[in-house]
């Protein structure tokens, strides 16, 4: 079963986009302004297309409970948006809405942040640390898929490698599917099994990636 499918989707920069995003790791790649982030907003149903439809597991997302969809396919935005409060407050935010307990320390470890960070003010972390915190916050919901918008854009080389290793671990060991937006072709090749190339709001190419090597 396909994870996501876009059928004739027109919305903002996107023009009649048709694409299949299978389970596993899919990279949406293209230059700035091509509509990559907009696709993630549509998959997470933060917006609905003007024309066409978006399907999740072969069902039109408009037929699904949007809150449930967002918990199953969690969006991690490019610009970190920490919620006022501590690191632990942020990690546990989504789970608390469901009255569910999470192991904050383990989630921080997953994304390469020390447990000692849990009581720090989330807004005082560096952008790179915030980006990893956003990933931990998304993982706390135990999603089936992560929708990642340039997840390593603010990270240095070492931190990027750690996050990429985490993503591969999530995908390969925990079975979490990834839809990854990036403008970095080499990152796409390192992480993705499939890729969709966008140019000026249209799909230029969509195919399986042959190359895939651990970072």
């Amino acid at each position, binding site marked *: 079963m396909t994870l996501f499918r876009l059928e004739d989707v027109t919305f903002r920069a996107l023009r009649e986009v048709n694409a299949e995003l299978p389970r596993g790791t899919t990279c949406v790649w293209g230059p700035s302004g091509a509509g990559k982030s907009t696709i993630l907003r549509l998959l997470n*149903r*933060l917006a*609905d297309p003007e024309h066409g439809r978006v399907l999740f597991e072969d069902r039109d997302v408009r037929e699904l409970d949007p*809150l449930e969809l*967002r918990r199953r396919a969690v969006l991690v935005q490019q610009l970190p948006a920490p919620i*006022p409060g501590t690191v632990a407050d942020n990690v546990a935010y989504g789970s608390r809405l*469901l009255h569910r307990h999470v192991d904050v320390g383990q989630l921080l470890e997953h994304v390469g942040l020390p447990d000692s960070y849990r009581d720090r003010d989330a807004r005082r972390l560096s952008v790179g640390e915030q980006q990893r915190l956003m990933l931990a916050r998304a993982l706390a919901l135990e999603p089936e898929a992560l929708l990642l918008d340039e997840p390593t854009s603010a990270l240095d080389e070492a931190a990027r490698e750690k996050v990429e290793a985490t993503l591969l671990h999530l995908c390969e060991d925990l079975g979490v599917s990834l839809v990854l937006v990036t403008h970095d072709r080499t990152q796409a090749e390192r992480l993705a099994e499939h890729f969709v190339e966008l140019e000026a709001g249209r799909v230029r190419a969509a195919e399986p990636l042959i190359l895939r090597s651990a970072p």
Partner: protein
Amino acid sequence: MIGWGQVAGSLALVGIAALLSFWRGIRIEQEIAWAVFRSFVQLIALGYVIKLIFEAGNIGYVVPLLALMVVFGAFTARNRARAIPNVLPVLLLSLGVAVAATLGLALAVGALHANSRTLIPVGGMVIGQAMIAVAIALSRLEHEVGASAAEIEARLSLGATARQAIDPILRRSLTAGMMQTIDSTKTAGLVFIPGTTVGMLLGGAAPLDAIRLQLILFYLLIGGVAISVVLAVTFAYRGFFTAAHQLRDLVAW
């Protein structure tokens, strides 16, 4: 009795305000002149309307007059929150319910007498204060939603409902709307002498009579403002979201 000569004399203070504005380059002389002109025309008209209602002695005229004030209040408050979709019905509802509930409760507990001489001025005060409070609350709501769109969407993307995603902003907006009334109630008698007390003392009433009425009005205003602000904020925030808990485009992009 207050004569027109005294009214004209007090205009000297307006002249000082206009001169200060000109001197400091604030450029609000026209605003001051327009406010003075409007208040003059509006209050004279109100005076004649109230005079007619008092002379008619029919309490039934109170409702349409207060309804008219609610409509003007709603249009005025709308100017402070134009980016909020469908805000006018929300304002009409919040101001209307606030004045009806406040006067109704005050009559029920015997705090006010059921006559037009009491209900019109008190109702007008409730509407006026509620209008200011609602305008402050909605203006804050509008500003914060625009400034915190990323944070709201972050909450939504983690499975929060629209209400959960905007809750901290709602609480700050409610506080902002209510603080002016609470502060003025707290400082009355220490920092300033409230308008009703001043009016009654100038009219020759006994000081404690003036204070008792003032206290009743303060308590009514706190209730009226709370009702109007809670209703306005509770209904207005929905305009920012779709039924699918999406933040509408007007502020999200």
